[in-house]
């Protein structure tokens, strides 16, 4: 009993410690991101790699989410005779919640783990040390570029996911209810306003930041050995996903305040 308590307590302490370390890592990012020299080429390369790695998966998942969502909600809406509200309903749920969260979770799986494994193996094979002694600040070259790239790319990926999900939803509506593309899109956009688009875009930036941050943090503090690198990738996905849900919760709380005003 006591040992169980002790175990829980030490778990709590180590979680708090980790939170502190991640926060310090994030602060170091903000200290270094605006300081020259800037690594633009590496930043562009990372943006390309992140897009390249996850675009296909994000589009696939977005499309299927659009289809499935519409197929499942449609019967209920028809029961209430609210079929005409389908496009607005689907549009709002995709743009506000499903698009950003699904995209972010996919990127947590692909991007955060990829960054974690890459930096982890660079750490244990002393490549990061080699950079340091050759006069390039490895935090700037590796970490700042990757976090920035993830932050910039996630909103773009979210827009891609939203668009294809709405298209998927349209396909179902078109086949089952014979709605034209023009009417559907008009309906979707008339129900969406800046109060939907802006918070979800801001949220996406934060998601991207969290994904880059966790991947880099875990990789930069990887343990020795190749097994350590595997654990690092895994831990990065777990931590990034958790952080995403917490951020999402906070974002919803904040936007809720604005809707009430």
């Amino acid at each position, binding site marked *: 009993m006591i040992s169980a308590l002790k175990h829980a307590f030490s778990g709590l302490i180590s979680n708090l410690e980790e939170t502190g370390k991640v926060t310090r890592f994030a602060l170091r990012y903000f200290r270094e991101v605006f300081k020259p*020299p800037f690594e633009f080429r590496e930043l562009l390369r990372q943006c390309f790699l992140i897009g390249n790695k996850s675009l296909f998966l994000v589009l696939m998942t977005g499309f299927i989410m659009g289809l499935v969502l519409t197929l499942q909600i449609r019967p209920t809406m028809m029961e209430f005779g609210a079929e005409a509200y389908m496009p607005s309903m689907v549009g709002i749920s995709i743009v506000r919640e499903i698009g950003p969260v699904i995209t972010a979770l996919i990127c947590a799986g692909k991007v955060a783990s990829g960054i974690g494994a*890459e930096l982890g193996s660079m750490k244990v094979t*002393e*490549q990061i*040390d*080699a950079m*340091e*002694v*050759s*006069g390039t600040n490895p935090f700037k070259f590796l970490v700042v570029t990757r976090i920035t790239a993830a932050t910039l790319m996630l909103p773009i990926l979210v827009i891609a996911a939203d668009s294809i999900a709405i298209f998927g939803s349209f396909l179902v509506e078109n086949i089952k209810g014979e709605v034209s593309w023009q009417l559907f899109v008009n309906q979707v956009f008339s129900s969406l306003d800046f109060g939907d688009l802006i918070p979800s875009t801001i949220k996406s930036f934060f998601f991207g930041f969290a994904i880059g941050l966790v991947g880099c943090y875990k990789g930069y503090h990887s343990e020795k050995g190749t097994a350590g690198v595997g654990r690092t990738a895994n831990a990065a996905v777990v931590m990034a996903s958790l952080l995403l849900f917490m951020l999402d919760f906070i974002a919803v709380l904040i936007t809720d305040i604005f809707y009430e005003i």
Partner: protein
Amino acid sequence: MIESNSSRVDQMTASSTAGSPLIRVQNLKKSFGDHQVLRGFNLELYPNENLVIVGKSGSGKSVLIKCMVRLLVPDEGELFVFDQSVPDLDQNELDQLRTEIGFLFQGSALYDSMTVRENLLFPMRRHSDRLRGEDETSLVEEALENVGLLDAIDLLPEELSGGMKRRVALARTLILKPRIILYDEPTSGLDPITGKEIIQLILEVQKKYKTASLIITHDMDCARVISNRMIILVDGVNYAEGTYDVLSKMTDPEVSAFFK
């Protein structure tokens, strides 16, 4: 190729003690948590000499040389390179100092996402002032030619064998023409023949660029061929010091264990 160079050693030690040391380490201490790794290490590295440090694995050899380029910061003691106190340098001075010190990492540490060419260009991106008007590409080619790997210029590290990787790493270390080179187990992870080739290469490089070298190893063959002087690291201190011939005749069990 393996021959005793004791006559050269005697000259060396006679002349070098007169000159001032390039690296001077005094009473260096470094712990990680409760684990005391270095407990008062002393060392002097003189111009043109090949100083070999041997010690068991985990005895703190890598920690010692990482302190010299401030990849690690010592807890206590003095550490001078070119008469500059390494722990007290600011970032600019440190970067400047690091261009004068080559570091060959244990596992080669080539950047795996970059080609051989990009690996060699990397140290120059922040130090174009050191090119002395020479063109980057010709420097890369010269460095690769020195290690006999000009053909590999556009390959990725994953396409190279272990011995080739070590050569490329050596070329990358040499590219800014450092005055001191620190070798962390240059033959580890290589088969004996490739290891000997690397040793020969190190000796050639030495002759050509007239660098002082500090070589860490537990390969006694390597130590015998390369060293002018050796230090045996036991329990975090310099336990014994001397030429290979002198040390190999010592009866102290801690020392003779290395020569079995």
